[in-house]
């Protein structure tokens, strides 16, 4: 199951994670975001152990959204060893997302 991260837990859960983390910036009112949720759950299942999925609600975590210059949601960021590796914007199918993330 994807974990919920906040400004307080971002460092520990994402930046200091041993495994790469896919961070999904989303909001409740955004339909494409809601449709991306099951896609991300499948990605996590397919790549179990290799990657974890974290979710940032931009409505509640304005600081993080700002920090990572989120200008359009859904935006998905991939972090590896505390570094931002890739950014993918918009809803897409699982295969396309995995490819675009370079996983």
């Amino acid at each position, binding site marked *: 199951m994807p974990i919920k991260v906040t400004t307080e837990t971002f460092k520990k859960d994402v930046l200091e994670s041993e495994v790469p983390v896919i961070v999904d910036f989303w909001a409740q009112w955004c339909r*494409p975001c809601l449709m991306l949720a099951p896609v991300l759950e499948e990605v996590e299942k397919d790549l179990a152990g290799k990657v974890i999925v974290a979710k940032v609600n931009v409505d509640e975590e304005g600081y993080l959204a700002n920090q990572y210059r989120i200008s359009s949601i859904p935006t998905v960021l991939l972090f590896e060893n505390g570094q931002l590796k890739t950014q993918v914007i918009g809803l897409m*199918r699982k295969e396309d997302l995995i490819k675009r993330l370079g996983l």
Partner: protein
Amino acid sequence: MYDAIVIGGGPAGTTAAIYLQRFKKSVLLIMKDAGALGKTKHIDNYYGFEETITGPELLKRGHAQARRLGVEIVNDEVLSIDNSPEYTVKTIKSEYKSKVVLLATGKSQATLKVKGFNDFIGKGISYCAICDGFIYRDKKIGLVGNKEFMLEELEILKNFSKDITIFTDGMDLEADVEEKVVREKILELKGENTVSKVVTKSDEYDIDVLFIAIGSPSASDFALRMGAFLDEKNNVIVDKLFMTNVPGLFAAGDTIGGLLQIVKATSDGAQATVSINRYIKNL
């Protein structure tokens, strides 16, 4: 409440409406204009027409045939589609409800073609006010558009900011707005990491975000807002049964890509109805 609403009266939508009618489903066909066929002078490759036929003539015959078989056709423009969970289709003049919707709106509209545009996609350019408006609360919002579709987006954006400028990009403004309107053609978009300036011939305008709602909404605009998958060319992605990943939302014809020809559009339209029929039965 209709069983099905078909959006688009080209070969895909009209064929679908005819088939649905034959399946004894209540169907409403909504179309705003002649679509791609309106621009077609000679059709030489469509089955059964020994003499060449014009696009408008083929369209006229298709509609006459549909009406004869009992299809209800309205001339109107669809502005938005909601599914929660039954479908509500809002047009300029009215609102309709149905169990399923078939998108057959043809090829997606061209977007803004100016220098710098592609650099800022996802970096301050947005196609969806309801998705991204919130991020720009109290910021300087630019909105490109000229008709009711633009007004739809404007209504949403007004909830987030008072600083909104409409850019018609040289098109005629076919709507009343109280906001500041820039009518000149847009020449370029500028910015460091994200878009921050709209450049026209005689001026430059500071913005934090530019929303795009040019002309009328296409299938890709509806799909985006409903969370249906699109490919990189903005074609709506459907499965073998012509359904999108949104239950009850189907698509056919040029809007799903592939061979952009009448024969394929009519075939799509017919095939989609077989699965629509099955889908409605299982509801």
